[in-house]
């Protein structure tokens, strides 16, 4: 087992563990923390695959901006104490079973694919670098990129309108 594989497994365990923490913890703040850890683990995976740009963006946008937003909201509303009422026990069990079924079915579907033997390029290859992605973004994908800025603008206006009193 070389260092890459070792890192892969460590990151995987962290990602899954913290993901479970999101779902299971009663306190929303812990959930947020678990999600942040998960994002970091995923970013670690990106780095392992030499997708440097996405790794950084992931941390900045998700772990930075979005999660801070979440925390803000939770703390603003003072929800950390608000333990949710677990009225419908069996609906939760059914939900868990349904989710696991989905997982099993998808894994089972994977078993018969040809693609699973293909290898993923680890550590090398420069498509994940800022330079090459940036060139792509501003040549081939320039129109979607500009449109996404419009999307942001509308999201901004939308959240202001919704959040406004009355």
């Amino acid at each position, binding site marked *: 087992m070389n260092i890459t594989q070792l890192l892969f497994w460590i990151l995987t365990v962290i990602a899954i563990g913290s993901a479970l923490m999101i779902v299971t913890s009663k306190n929303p703040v812990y959930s947020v923390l678990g999600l942040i850890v998960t994002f970091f683990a995923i970013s670690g995976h990106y780095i392992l695959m030499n997708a440097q740009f996405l790794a950084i963006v992931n941390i900045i946008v998700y772990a930075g901006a979005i999660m801070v937003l979440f925390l803000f909201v939770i703390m603003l509303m003072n929800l950390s104490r608000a333990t949710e009422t677990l009225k419908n026990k069996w*609906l939760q069990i*059914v*939900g868990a079973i*349904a*989710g696991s*079924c*989905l997982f099993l*079915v*998808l894994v*089972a*579907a994977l078993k*018969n694919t040809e693609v699973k033997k293909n290898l993923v390029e680890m550590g090398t290859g420069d498509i994940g670098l800022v330079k090459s992605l940036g060139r792509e973004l501003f040549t081939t994908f320039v129109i979607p990129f500009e449109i996404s800025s419009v999307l942001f603008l509308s999201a901004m206006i939308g959240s202001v309108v919704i959040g406004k009193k009355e």
Partner: protein
Amino acid sequence: MNNVLDIVYWIPLLPLLGCIINGLGRKSLSKGAVGFIGSGVILASFILSLWVFFQVRGGNVHTAEYFPFINVGNLKIPFAFQIDQLSAIWLLIITGIGFLIHVYSTSYMHDEKPEHFGRYFAYLNLFVFSMLLLVMGANFVIMFIGWEGVGLCSYLLIGFWFKKKEYSKAANKAFIMNRVGDLAFLIALFILISKLGTTTFSEIFTPASLAKLSAKEISAITLLLFIGATGKSAQIPLYTWLPDAMAGPTPVSALIHAATMVTAGIYMIARANLLFSMAPSTLNIIAIIGIATALLAATIALKQNDIKKVLAYSTVSQLGYMFLALGSGAYVAAVFHVMTHAFFKALLFLGSGSVIHAMGGEQDMRKMGGLSKYMKITNLTFLLGCLAIAGIPGFSGFFSKDEILAGAFAKSPVLYALGLLGALLTAFYMFRLYATTFKGSFRGTHEQEHHLHESPAAITIPLIILAILSVVGGFVGVPEFMAHGAHALSDFLHPIFKDSYALLPVHEADHSTEWGLAGLSSVLIIVTVIIAWTRFSKKPDLEPASGLGKVLENKWYVDELYDTVIVKPLNKLGSFLGNVVDKRIVDGAVNGVGRLVRYGSRQLRWVQSGQTGSYILMMVLGMVLVFVVQFFLRK
């Protein structure tokens, strides 16, 4: 109009027109107009038929195709008429007798309300139309239209006085019993179509197409056709509708019994004679059923007290004779007897109608008697009719019956002996009827006696014409042993039956035997007539019958037997299906579906909880399902 055969379609079309005019105008037309139109169209048809007859006699046989009636795949059934010797004779009988009955009806039905009067004539014309269609059709399908048409018209006319429940029941009985036979006819038709692909007579009755049928198939087809004929022509086991058909007005009985309807079965078998000649086993069955019906009906007629019932059973009996003739291969004799029977049976029925008219609707002959004093013409014509049907030498019935008996003798002496017995019974009950009705002293109420009168001319003239025909009608078929080459009818019909003659074994009894047979039957019949006359004119049997007489009076309890064996179980089955299967199962299923949907939707409503969580759960489960299905499908 070079040739009348080109306008032959007017023969059935005129009665149809009459039916439409009378039927639609029954409320606005006066009785005189209705009677004039109703009788006039039949007279016109009769004149055309007469013309056609002479054309056919001159050797012109005609087939006319008017339009394609059924065109399905390879099956092409044209609407076509065929005029040949056989149909020409029937045309004359139907329109001739039919015309007399129409004229008679104008007087007989005069007490009806105008709209019923119009309705009556519309039905009567439709009846004649259907019968004409039946005999003119050039294929089995057109024949079947007429076949069903007469069934319908008999239903309408038997139930003419539909307000009386038992009359409607009699109409239903006639219709349903006919339907049983029709089913067999229809199946025979289907077999013909499936085996030969055609129903046209001229195509079926050729050696080439008959060769395609195996002996078994021919037996099956002929048997089914014969069952169809038993329904229409009132033979065992489907005869009980005919006596009940007396519920209709008397002229209708005359029409059914003499000119139309019951002779349809005979016509059909005579038309398909080649087919029947190829199936000797069917011929045997026909002969046996024929003689059995003849004897059964004759014994029943011995003890009936209703004047029309006696005549009805005598019709069944005479029809039995005709089937005996057909079964013996004596086709000409059957046709001959149809003709003479049409004359004297129409005469007898119209005569009885005249009597009933005079008696103010009374039909029980125990309450009559001595009518000869009051109704001279009716009495005389009725006597002539009785002599004719009894088979007194010189009258028409003698010739035709003698020919049938000769044919039966050729087939088997046993059949001859039974046939002779039937003839004696016929003579006996007819003169019992005559003597009880017209001789002795009057036994009705004083009021009725006062009312007794001779019927008007519209009734007596047809009686006189029919009486003349009944007397002389037999001379078209003087048998070979009496005068050589005098059997005009046989010569005329020879083209129709010649192929059958080639098939059937010929038993030519020598002339002395035939003289002997004719002499024997004549002597016995005359003796029977004298016994019956003397016995019943002095002392009519008024006492309630006992022993065997009671059985006969109750018609051998055949109606009761049918009632128990067929009608009641069917009714039970019907009420079971109606009350249990329909209400519980069918209705239950229908209501159950409704209730299930309502229940299901009420339960399903909870799925729409409005809770996002449950929607998502559904979505996930759906995804899983899709994956699983796809997973299994791929393998």
